[in-house]
């Protein structure tokens, strides 16, 4: 069937998924899951059928709605994003049946309605055939997300997160509207048309590109536009965080890809800025993640890191086009697009796992958890798979996309664009830091002994939640071992992202070797595991040896803070931690109970944006002197202005 019609059906299914639940509350969760699942399946079908459509025009379904001609365009660029969104939406719908129960959440029907609309908005962004449709879908998405972040609006934390999100998303939208106005002026129509180099290089063209860049980078959560991302992801319900981190932030990436495909030849600064911010986001994201002890905030910082990896690939591709290096283009672009899909899969899985932990233990503080692998075995296994995938460890999907990006970076570093070397070092360092961070998150939360009674009482989540997580974990493994099968699709998507000419992914048989290595790894591991299981038959069980210490307690275990300390000390310069040191009362000999706490703060927000906002507020307060609310004073201003104008005109 026509890809655009499939996409339209997917949008409709997702948008309406929460509606029946408003009337039939009891069946609401299931109906919503069916709607989202159907919408997700249709979106995946639309993506796959668009991938192998020969022309980059794709197919357009047009209709007249309320004065604007809405149109949909589904082509190779949309396809990767639609597939990612479809898979995540299906899993999230299934997960929400067990996770977001009406009995516990009084506003559950409204959350479902908004979640469905959010998915519809995101799908609309990916399938929009012109800028006006794009803008409307973008707004639906942004406002639904605001409503969902504010779900727990009785908590101050959620309210603050929602306001911060609203403020940044308004900034992005304003920038986008201005850019769209310039687009209409420059190209004469709202469609995605090709922008010639001369137009893109004019003053208006450069301004437009810069405005688009600001809007898309804020939405993608790249440094320094990331400030909304960690609090919003932490405050939203976990299945919504999964959608936000998995696909919502990818709308920014989609915008960059779509705009890139419209540029005849992107200017070098455009690719350079994307690449530079990608490198900065990668490193800073993982460093800040290392310092956070809230499981969902930690995952949110890793979203910034992974957006950075995607931007590295995208930046490489843009630079490759500016320099006329097709290999750089195809490696960067296919790596970035595959990482979009991969990050959607493993990050939504991680958020769903974090949601299950939060639900079972009532806390997201890593240092209060522990020992959950015994109590929640399926959640633990899925979380560990996703953790390995996000650290780019074979045989999971994170490795194959980072592999492509790395190849592009090597090619750039050796082949004449020396800046790629900086990205390469950043990515190598990030790999190690991410591994340390996820060893911390997975190890402290799921392994060892429970650190609090709440963690000790934890229970495994419901079957629907487990099924959703298992499905995503299966996708992570499938892509990790199935790179060769994806190569034609990636090539089609990459070619759709170029206005002219085609490029081909080199050395396709390397993909087979990755598959072979993954198979050997799995088979060898399984054989050795079985041998070890036989060898340790009849093993004794005792307490942890702990160097002979007889009475260890759970609180003597290493915590997330202590685990991260050696690395955190090295990178303290770019972290901002607020420490509350204990005031020891009761004399030096018998001090009373004291407490120490530290809270990581966002250095960009606290050091730069908040002072800037305060400066603006200070200026505004200064202006308040002249408008104190006295009407006679305002009349005086009017009279004085009139007099001044009169004098000016006379002179």
């Amino acid at each position: 069937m026509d890809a655009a019609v499939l996409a339209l059906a997917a949008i409709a299914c997702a948008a309406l998924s929460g509606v029946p639940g408003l009337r039939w509350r009891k069946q609401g969760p299931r109906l919503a899951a069916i709607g989202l699942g159907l919408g997700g399946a249709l979106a995946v079908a639309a993506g796959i059928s668009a991938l192998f459509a020969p022309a980059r025009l794709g197919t357009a379904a047009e209709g007249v709605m309320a004065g604007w001609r809405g149109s949909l365009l589904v082509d190779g660029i949309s396809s990767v994003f639609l597939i990612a969104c479809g898979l995540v939406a299906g899993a999230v719908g299934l997960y929400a049946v067990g996770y977001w129960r009406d009995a516990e959440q009084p506003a559950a029907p409204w959350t479902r309605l908004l979640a469905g609309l959010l998915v519809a908005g995101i799908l609309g962004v990916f399938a929009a055939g012109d800028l006006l449709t794009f803008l409307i879908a973008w707004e639906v998405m942004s406002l639904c997300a605001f409503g969902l972040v504010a779900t727990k609006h009785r908590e101050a934390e959620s309210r603050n997160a929602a306001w911060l999100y609203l403020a940044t998303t308004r900034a992005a939208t304003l920038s986008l509207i201005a850019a769209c106005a310039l687009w209409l002026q420059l190209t004469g129509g709202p469609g995605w048309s090709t922008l010639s180099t001369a137009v893109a290089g004019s003053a208006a063209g450069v301004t437009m590109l810069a405005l688009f860049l600001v809007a898309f980078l804020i939405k993608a959560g790249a440094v320094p536009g990331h400030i909304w991302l960690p609090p919003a992801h932490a405050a939203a319900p976990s299945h919504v965080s999964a959608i936000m981190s998995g696909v919502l932030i990818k709308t920014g990436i989609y915008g960059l890809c779509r705009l890139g495909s419209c540029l005849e030849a992107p200017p070098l600064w455009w690719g350079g800025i994307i690449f530079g911010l990608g490198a900065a986001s990668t490193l800073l994201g993982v460093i800040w993640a290392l310092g956070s002890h809230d499981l969902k905030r930690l995952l949110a910082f890793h979203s910034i890191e992974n957006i950075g990896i995607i931007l590295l690939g995208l930046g490489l591709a843009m630079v490759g086009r500016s320099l006329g290096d097709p290999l750089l283009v195809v490696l960067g672009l296919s790596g970035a697009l595959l990482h979009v899909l991969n990050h959607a899969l493993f990050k939504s899985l991680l958020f769903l796992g974090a949601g299950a932990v939060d639900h079972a233990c009532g806390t997201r503080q890593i240092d209060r958890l522990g020992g959950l692998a015994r109590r929640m075995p399926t959640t633990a296994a899925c979380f560990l798979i996703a953790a390995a995938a996000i650290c780019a460890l074979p045989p999971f999907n994170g490795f194959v996309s980072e592999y492509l990006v790395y190849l592009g970076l090597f090619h750039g570093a050796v082949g004449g664009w020396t800046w790629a070397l900086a990205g390469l070092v950043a990515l190598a360092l990030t790999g190690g830091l991410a591994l340390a961070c996820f060893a911390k998150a997975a190890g402290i939360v799921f392994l060892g002994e429970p650190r609090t009674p709440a963690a000790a009482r934890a229970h495994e989540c419901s079957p629907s939640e487990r099924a959703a997580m298992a499905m995503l974990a299966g996708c992570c493994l499938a892509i990790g071992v199935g790179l060769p099968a994806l190569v034609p699709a990636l090539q089609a998507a990459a070619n759709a992202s170029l206005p002219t000419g085609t490029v081909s992914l080199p050395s396709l048989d390397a993909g087979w070797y990755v598959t072979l290595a993954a198979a050997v790894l799995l088979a060898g591991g399984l054989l050795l595991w079985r041998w070890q299981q036989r060898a340790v038959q009849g093993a004794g069980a005792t307490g942890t040896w702990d160097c002979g210490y007889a009475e260890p307690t759970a609180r003597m275990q290493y915590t997330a803070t202590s685990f991260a300390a050696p690395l955190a000390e090295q990178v303290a310069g770019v972290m901002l931690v607020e420490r509350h040191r204990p005031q020891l009362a009761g004399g030096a000999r018998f001090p009373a109970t004291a407490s120490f706490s530290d809270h990581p703060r966002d250095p960009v927000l606290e050091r730069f944006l908040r002072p800037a906002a305060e400066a603006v507020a200070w200026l505004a307060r200064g202006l308040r002197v002249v408008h104190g609310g006295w009407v006679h004073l305002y009349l005086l201003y009017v009279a004085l202005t009139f007099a001044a104008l009169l004098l000016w005109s006379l002179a």
Partner: protein
Amino acid sequence: MTWIEPADLAAHAPRILAHLAVLLVLPPLLLGLIAKVKAFFAGRVGPPLLQPYYDLAKLLRKGTVFSRTTTWVFRLGPVAGVVTAVLAGLMVPLGGVAAPISFTGDLLLVAYLLALGRFCTILSALDTGSAFEGMGASREAAYACLAEPALFLGFVALALLLPEGAQLNLGNLLAASPGGWELAAGGMALVAAAWMVVLLVENCRIPFDDPNTHLELTMIHEVMVLDHSGPPLGLILYGASVKLAVIGMLVLGLILPRSGHLAVDLAVGVGGLLGLAVVIGMIESSMARLRLLRVPALLVSAALLAGFGVILLAVR
């Protein structure tokens, strides 16, 4: 890089078998040799050269005790340590003996396979819930992460030497090093020094970690495996020795001469590995372990050395 045709298999078989034999059988001997060299410097007789093999045979026959705290993750660590090290080794050439598997970007798979082994070992240590093992795990994660840039910068330095259009794989990269010594010996020496530091830190040798230390508070690798016993401990010991050999092969690839004759190359490669073990033994005998707080400085210096190596090779 193409698939080996069945007809060619016979021609390649001796090379592949020789590589496999060195990779699977030789590594514990390296540990024995290091211990012997250290004993020599200390004026002792020391344990027999083959002691690690005796230890392995003994451990595989011993019973096991598991902590009640642990889960399947604890048992995964030793298995992953061996499988990842061996699979990585299959992609690293031994001097002039080409690796059994070679393809574009295999260096990335090698680096990330070693990372996978480390990830599983760290989780396995955290699974015991012991503060000591947590401490070791934390240090392992921190130091390995700082060593990564030095490794990758070394790869870039070698990639600069590749002829136009040559494939980016370990075989080609390491084979380019003799040319590198002629062009810019200084740059190659810096890269070799940086990779030597990587070798020492990845394998927890002095000056980063003392494998023979007796104080749990200062250990890294040894403290992570305190709770393992019997066959799992044997696997860990074996996996660690294979990892030493694999990274050793990487370092040797920079400096070993190549003849093109399998027998000669094999002898040079094995001799190189044994020589490397002697050098490690000498380093361990002549240096004290660094203070833990000083370790990151040395690792960053290694990355800088490799970075200067890149510059020297780029502007040759």
